[in-house]
């Protein structure tokens, strides 16, 4: 198990496997109880200085998930809003502490994910096939991770192979609507040298909108991923790893329109995204629990969305390109009760967006192309440092500071001070206060959406400042017994200079009104959580969580749109008979403010799953997600209910070697 824990630290990008083994002081029963995202140092999740929630791959599979969005959609403390920012079934964006879009940072093994859609990283495009677990840190975390970490951070962590020799894992699942999921991993380890291949494929038919029309409310989707990973040791103290992944998402939407006097015609709305990531990591063991790590990364994201009339060239196609090149070095210096983390990250991003229109004119087809976002390059350098100072076993103090120097608008500083007090083994009291910020995006800086023919344009603005926030978090954990744990927490955030399109202050140039992105928003969010986990019996485990959220748009003097104030989540996992497993998960989401005239309805979902072990480390399973078949209503603005409705699935998963080496 210590090997597994070390591997977890290694995969988290904190240190080399060798060094991780040396520095592990955590007596973890399960490597998945070790968290790294909140402090960039390994800690047991229950005793971590920063509250960090974990969803393991096993738990994600129990929830019937095929991707990160589905894995988190019933996670306490977060909301995943499928399609809230695009057409239905489109981007699944996460909301933490009332913040979403670019105000929640999404990481893969500690590296930011590029390629947002309307500001949202589409979590449904991230498969869970090759991940080990997902860590969720709530509250401002910019002191460690920089831009976008206002509401929190989601870190999706993969893992290197643990076992010597060949090992692998496979999952095949069928779903209604011709859904198919196939996931596979194969790897080989010999000593400190290993290599692995990951593949993932998922497809599902769309959901029709109306019985008499071919329109799709949710498009047909297919998602593929191929990844290769390898690592070796160059010497006793130096490990190197390389990781490459290719994601391809394709959705085929379809809508019909009526042309009075002509009839209906069909418009195809395909979307395709290709994302490549390449990372090279070198870790140097400095001894005595200290280490140095270098990461060199490059990501490419190309997406195309089109709207074309079937069997015709008439339509439009929008292309977006996003590139990120990054270099980061971070050192961890363990000095008795003090652990220093200091690093510097430099990155360059390139972004462009173009629109090509093909129209029918009296002289034939005519195409025009405009740059909706003029190609832009951003550069930034960010040094950061953090001290984790333990005063005995009962108090840990964690000050940290990160500075960001951007090529376009100057500097930002984001401090954080956190503390954890453990007066007895049963109690853990944590508090943190920190600053979050978000850099203006390329779109907000350079967008041109020209609808002059309809009398308006939406324009970017070069003089935008970063959004900034202050946030306070506190929580108390009480381990009532080895079987019962209670936890309660609260948070408050104040956000300034929110960037949005300033509709109220458009400027006119004749009959064309220009609306620009501006820093004019202010908002506050407040929330509280309480949860309890209990082992009723050795074969029965339960969880119950309640989340309260209050938000205020201080400019409009209204709640923020689409933030449900009350959420209850409950789950029960049972293994009543040998080799059988049963799982139930319930979630109740209250109705929420959308506009002064509109609320999104409250709803509840119930997921059920049963599984039976076929042979060692293999299981046949089946389940239902969203048993009550709650789903969005076509045309309803701001509807936060699930788009897909009820889903049935059956599948088999297996790992080899089948016999676990103890």
């Amino acid at each position: 198990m210590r090997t597994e824990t070390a591997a977890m630290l290694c995969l988290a990008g904190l240190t080399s496997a060798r060094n991780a083994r040396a520095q592990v002081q955590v007596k973890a029963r399960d490597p998945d109880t070790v968290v790294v995202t909140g402090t960039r140092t390994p800690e047991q999740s229950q005793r971590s200085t920063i509250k960090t929630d974990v969803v393991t791959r096993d738990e994600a599979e129990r929830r019937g998930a095929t991707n990160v969005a589905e894995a988190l959609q019933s996670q306490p403390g977060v909301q995943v809003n499928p399609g809230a920012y695009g057409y239905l079934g489109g981007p699944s964006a996460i909301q933490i502490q009332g913040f979403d879009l670019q105000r929640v940072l999404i990481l893969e093994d500690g590296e930011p994910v590029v390629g947002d859609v309307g500001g949202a990283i589409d979590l449904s495009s991230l498969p869970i096939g090759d991940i080990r677990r997902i860590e969720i840190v709530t509250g401002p975390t910019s002191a460690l991770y920089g831009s976008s970490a206002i509401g929190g951070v989601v870190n999706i962590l993969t893992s290197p192979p643990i076992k010597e020799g060949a090992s692998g894992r496979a999952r095949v699942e069928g779903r209604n609507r011709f859904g198919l999921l196939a996931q596979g991993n194969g790897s080989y380890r010999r000593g400190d040298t290993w290599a692995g291949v990951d593949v993932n494929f998922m497809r599902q038919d769309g959901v029709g909108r109306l019985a008499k029309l071919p329109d799709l409310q949710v498009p047909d989707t297919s998602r593929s991923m191929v990844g290769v990973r390898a690592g070796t040791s160059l010497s006793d103290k130096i490990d190197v790893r390389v990781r490459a992944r290719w994601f391809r998402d394709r959705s085929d939407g379809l809508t019909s329109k009526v042309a009075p006097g002509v009839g209906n015609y069909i418009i195809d709305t395909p979307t395709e995204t290709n994302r490549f990531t390449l990372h090279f990591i070198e870790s140097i063991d400095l001894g005595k629990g200290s280490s140095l790590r270098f990461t060199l990364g490059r990501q490419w994201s190309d997406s195309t969305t089109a709207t074309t009339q079937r069997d015709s060239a008439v339509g439009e196609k929008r292309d977006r390109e996003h590139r990120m090149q990054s270099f980061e070095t971070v050192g961890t210096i363990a000095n008795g009760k003090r652990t220093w983390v200091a690093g510097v990250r430099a990155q360059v991003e390139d972004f462009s967006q173009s629109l090509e229109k093909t129209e029918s004119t009296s002289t034939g087809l005519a195409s025009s192309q405009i740059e909706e976002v003029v190609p832009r390059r951003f550069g930034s350098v960010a040094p950061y440092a953090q001290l984790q100072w333990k005063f005995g076993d009962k108090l840990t103090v964690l000050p940290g500071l990160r500075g960001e120097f951007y090529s376009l608008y100057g500097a930002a500083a984001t401090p954080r001070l956190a503390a954890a007090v453990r007066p007895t083994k049963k109690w853990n009291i944590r508090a943190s206060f920190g600053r979050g910020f978000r850099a203006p995006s390329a779109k907000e800086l350079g967008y041109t959406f020209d609808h002059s023919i309809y009398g308006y344009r939406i324009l970017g603005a070069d003089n935008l400042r970063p959004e900034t926030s202050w946030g306070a978090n506190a929580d108390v954990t009480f381990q009532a017994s080895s079987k019962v744990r209670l936890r309660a927490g609260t948070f408050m955030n104040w956000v300034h200079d929110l960037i949005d399109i300033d509709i109220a202050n458009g400027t006119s140039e004749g009959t064309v009104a220009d609306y620009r992105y501006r820093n004019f928003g202010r908002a506050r969010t407040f929330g509280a959580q309480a949860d309890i986990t209990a082992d009723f019996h050795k074969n029965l485990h339960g969880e119950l969580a309640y989340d309260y959220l209050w938000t205020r748009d201080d400019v409009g003097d209204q709640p923020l749109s689409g933030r449900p104030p009350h959420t209850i989540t409950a789950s029960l996992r049972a293994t009543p008979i040998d080799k059988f497993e049963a799982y139930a998960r319930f979630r109740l989401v209250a109705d929420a403010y959308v506009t002064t005239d509109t609320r999104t309805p409250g709803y509840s979902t119930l997921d059920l799953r049963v599984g039976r072990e076929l042979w060692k480390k293999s299981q046949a399973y089946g389940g239902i997600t969203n048993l009550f078949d709650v789903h969005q209503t076509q045309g309803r603005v701001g509807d936060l209910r699930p788009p897909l409705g009820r889903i049935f699935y059956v599948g088999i998963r297996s790992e080899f070697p089948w016999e676990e080496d103890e």
Partner: protein
Amino acid sequence: MKKNARSGRPRLAATIFAAATFAVLGAAACSDTAGEGARTTVTSTDGGTDALTSFSLGTEFRVNVPDDGRVYVKLSPLGMATVESAPETSSAWDLAFEGFDIATNGGVSGAGKGGSFGPVDLVAFVADTAPVIPFISADRAGGAFVDWYMYEGAPTHALWSRYHVFGVKDGERIFKVQVLTYYGQRDGATISGLYNIRYAEVLPDGSSGTTTELTNLDGTAGGAAAPPSSPSECLDLVTGARTMLTEIEARASSAWHLCFRRQSISVNGEKGGPRGITAVDLEEDKMTGENIDAVKALTAASQKSKFDSANYASFAGRTFRGDRVISGLDQWVDRTKTPFLPVDSAWVVVDQAGTQKYLLGFAPFENPTTRSPGTVVMYVKPVKG
């Protein structure tokens, strides 16, 4: 004892779990109503008190509108403007009052960058910023055909022909015209702006000439991305000639009766062009009773008999006009009242420089006649945005 202790822990866990369940379920019964119910809205149920209360936030200004001729108003500084000649090229004015029409200094009315939009709710007068509106319209020429279609909003966004029968008068000759559709197929695609119409001459003896049905009259004007100088198709009802003309060319040309440009159909008379053509909507009085569902049920075939039955006598006593100025203030007068009254709403107006927005509102006319509102009591408020 050991056995009891072991069995006691699950019970404790279950008890706490159940208590917590009830607690959170109870809390969930609340909802976030903070901030709602405290909002106040100025409504305009009747034009009197609420309107004047809102208008008090603007500056009152009185305009004496004669029965004949125009008067001009400058919005900053607020006052009457003197326009000696060529108002079309003058920047000395922002608004022009002529009878019950108001023009802005832009589009077909002037060389400025003015425009307007309305009506908007009276509550707009409370704010210092302009209300959120979809667009500002420059003045355009329009007349009998201005309401040839009914617009179906989201998600359809379609223009449905009302299948009204229009009369188009060229000297003593009258043609009846019916718009069949705004959509057609070209380059393998269904596109908007391609008109199908039917027309025929009606003769004094009560008979009609041959009915002609034309398809794909090109009103696309190059599509949404095309520059304003893109041509569209114009039709001569006498010769059947179809000519592609830009908006400026059409205004100077006598080679057409009707010009099709996106959703607008122009008549070559008055503001529309030099030929002196006039037109009338034979079913204008039915407009208020029409609704989108009823209009969608109509077809070219079902409305053919209505077209066929229209004859010379059908147009007797009707007022034919060329194109006049259509601005965002087109609906500022409630013509169902006697005497006419200004509508209880606000309007957004952009000055001739195209840089400053104003809110306008109107109190009841003083000394109106059948040809003019008399003294217009206007409230003006500059707003940001």
